[in-house]
């Protein structure tokens, strides 16, 4: 895959990846964009190893997930509820406040639960595809989804 092809792929898919990372970072768009940049640069560096038969986007999500996890390990950032305070425009603040209960609920989930829930419900991936992205077993992913659902049920009821 050459640079033009890579750029074309990224142009087509960057919005979905950035939205996903924003949700994963509980609304922190700046951090999500930084992680997205890291993800795409890592993907560019390794695009020679990308197998044509596997899905490009799944591969990107796997890199995004690993980047997110290593970022969490490095900085231990508390995404929390301060996200809306950092919003610049009123429109974006409105959107952030609209999703505030969901972000707050997602923030309480473990990284793996959040990842599985978002990949399944937001991105529409099946359990088999999630196992491929997160490199976990199907049972582990089902368990994460089940636990994530249980936690969201309790958290969003409040």
């Amino acid at each position: 895959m050459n640079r033009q092809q890579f750029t074309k792929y990224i142009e087509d898919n960057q919005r979905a990846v950035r939205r996903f990372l924003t949700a994963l970072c509980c609304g922190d768009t700046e951090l999500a964009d930084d992680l997205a940049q890291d993800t795409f640069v890592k993907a560019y560096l390794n695009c020679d190893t990308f197998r044509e038969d596997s899905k490009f986007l799944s591969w990107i999500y796997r890199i995004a997930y690993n980047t997110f996890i290593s970022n969490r390990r490095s900085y231990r950032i508390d995404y929390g509820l301060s996200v809306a305070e950092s919003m610049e425009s009123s429109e974006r603040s409105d959107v952030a406040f609209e999703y505030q209960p969901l972000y707050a609920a997602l923030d309480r989930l473990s990284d793996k639960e959040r990842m599985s829930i978002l990949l399944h419900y937001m991105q529409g991936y099946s359990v088999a595809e999630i196992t491929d992205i997160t490199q976990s077993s199907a049972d582990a992913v089902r368990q994460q989804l089940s636990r994530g659902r249980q936690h969201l049920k309790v958290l969003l009821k409040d």
Partner: protein
Amino acid sequence: MDDEKLKTLFADFSPSIGNDETFMTRLQRNIEAVELIKQQALQSQRSNRKAVTISAAVGFICGVIFTLCYPYLKEAIGSFCLQIAGAEAFMTEYSTVILWSIICITTSALVYVAYDIASAVQKATVRPRGCPSIR
């Protein structure tokens, strides 16, 4: 919360993101930086290979010269040993070892110096595009 409720909740969920153009411009800049670093690494690898080849050639030439001069060197060492009072026997017995030690040390030093000079010359002459010279 059942599956359907979650699906409905996430169907309307569309987190806001920043400007696409700004993001892509930043990404292009990052990719260009990556390309520059890759180019630099490749050039440094090439110049290192050249320096290794030059130092190997210097090592080979030194070996040839020392082999050709070995009889003369041995004679010189022998006559030198006889001049040292009190240590003639020891020096005469170990003259071969001493001679080989001197040859090894001299060759190693010359190879190291050749590698160092070749690397410095390569670095001075090969400068990647976009990198200003350091004054």
